[in-house]
């Protein structure tokens, strides 16, 4: 029993010890097989970089921060363990930066000959490099807190500027400005209306001038043609023929006028006869309309119409009866 107890206790203790040691080594990523090499980097400050933070090269984790210590001349030296088989830049530099918003920091190895664009970072690397020694130059990017503080300062400045603008443009100034803008808008509207009206008038005047100019051109052309024809007529004695023709035409016109006067006299006589005929016709029509005479009675008395209609009806009935009973009216007998 005693031996069994000793074995069980010994086994438990050894197992627990092994678990603790192995777990601690595994969790701390201790380099048991010496697969890593050590390097030092020198910073003015390491920011939030801590022991155990990852060391990355082009985004790939290649080691961890083993130690951080203060050294002379206000430098901070970090001990980095880096995988042996990693091909490092010819002259490496280390940038300590926040890896996430949750407090993670990492040390990134970059080529010193291709420094980052940030002038402060370049200056920090150059200063670290000038310190000499075997340690790699290092620089630290501001962490989220510093960036936030900077943003807060900027926001404060913007607030001050806004406040000043607000003071310069108080409510009265703003109203005046609004009034000025409204006046300017009204003036602009009137100017637009005036410009439109003037444009319309100018267009009309321009069209009139064009029309007048065209008319003048036509007159000039007509006059030029007339002058040309006159010139031609004067040249070939046609003017004399024209005058002779005109004289003959004038004689014809006088004759025609005399004929027209005699026709008008005859017409005036016929007009008297026509008036008389019209008066008689008017009288006749009046008598007819008043129902005098045979035609008047025919036109105004409906007795004849009714008699005629009754006769036609009777005639139709007769025809119908004849068609229905032909033997009643026609009696054809050969013998």
């Amino acid at each position: 029993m005693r031996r069994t107890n000793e074995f069980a206790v010994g086994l438990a203790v050894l197992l627990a010890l092994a678990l603790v040691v192995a777990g601690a080594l595994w969790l701390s990523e201790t380099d048991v097989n010496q697969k890593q090499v050590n390097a030092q980097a020198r910073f003015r400050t390491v920011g939030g970089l801590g022991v155990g933070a990852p060391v990355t090269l082009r985004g790939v984790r290649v080691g961890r921060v083993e130690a951080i210590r203060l050294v002379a001349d206000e430098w901070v030296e970090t001990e980095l363990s880096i995988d042996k088989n990693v091909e490092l830049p010819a002259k490496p530099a280390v940038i300590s930066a926040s890896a996430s918003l949750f407090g993670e920091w990492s040390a990134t190895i970059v080529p010193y000959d291709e420094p980052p664009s940030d002038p402060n970072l370049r200056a920090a690397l150059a200063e670290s490099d000038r310190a000499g020694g075997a340690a790699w130059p290092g620089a630290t990017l501001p962490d989220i807190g510093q960036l936030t503080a900077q943003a807060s300062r900027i926001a404060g400045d913007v607030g001050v500027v806004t406040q000043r603008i607000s003071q310069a443009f108080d409510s009265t100034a703003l109203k005046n400005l609004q009034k000025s803008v409204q006046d300017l808008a009204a003036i602009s509207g009137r100017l637009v209306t005036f410009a439109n009206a003037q444009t319309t008038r100018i267009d009309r005047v321009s069209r009139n001038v064009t029309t007048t100019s065209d008319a003048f051109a036509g007159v000039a052309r007509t006059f030029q043609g007339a002058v040309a024809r006159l010139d031609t007529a004067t040249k070939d004695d046609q003017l004399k023929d024209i005058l002779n023709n005109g004289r003959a035409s004038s004689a014809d016109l006088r004759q025609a006028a005399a004929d027209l006067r005699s026709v008008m006299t005859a017409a005036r006589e016929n007009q008297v006869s026509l008036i008389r005929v019209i008066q008689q016709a008017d009288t006749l029509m009046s008598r007819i309309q008043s129902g005098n005479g045979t035609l008047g009675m025919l036109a105004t008395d409906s007795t004849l119409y009714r008699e005629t209609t009754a006769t036609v009806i009777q005639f139709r009935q007769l025809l119908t009866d004849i068609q229905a009973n032909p033997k009643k009216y026609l009696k054809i007998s050969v013998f």
Partner: protein
Amino acid sequence: MTHDSRLTTYSPPRDGFITHIGRRSLETFRAVADVPTWSPLLVGQMRRLGVDSVPIALFIAVFTGIVLSLLSSYIFTGAVPLYFVGALVGKTVMMELGPVLTGMALAGRVGASIAAELGTMKVTEQVDALETLAYDRNAYLVVPRVLAATLMFPVVTAFAMAVGVTSGWITAVNLLDLSTPEFFKGLRMFYQFKDIWFGLVKSASFGAAVALMGCLQGLDSKSGAQGVGQSTTRAVVLGCEAILVLDAFWALVLL
């Protein structure tokens, strides 16, 4: 140390609670010097108090890891990267829940066992018989138990830590949208060696306190079986209270 002087070390609890605890603790501390008396009994107590308590500690650790993993994923989803589940499970199991829950479980099991055993010995006058035989009861009964618990609680806690983290990892991989490398990334991200030894140191102090409370309450038992039952209850309650007080103490001192 003569037999007569050892016989005069015991006195019934007539004074205040803290004074009584302090006096008994000093007596126990003095009795540690009597190595020939307690050393043959130490391994047996280590087996009984430590090794035999491993299953209950592992049972608690398994479910602690599962719950922590699920709970942390519930908290972190959408706000914090999920690999922080590994960090939370590791830190919590190693620094707090591993030692404390194991200590609580062992306070029930070990503290009650010690108090009942010693209380029965007390009311059946076996303790008096030991003293009649010139045994220092502190050296014979208290020291091996306290030492065994002090030594074995860290062992049990180490197992609980490993199992708790492992169950958290298995839960994260199987029930959460988390891969093994991500879990280990979180686990390693904020790990410090202090995380482990802090939990082990705490658990050693818990073991000492639980065993001491069990021994003191057992040896102070009165009035037969009822008194033994009361002593057992008080041993468990005082053991748990001692664990919580010590937990806060170590957090103040070591963190």
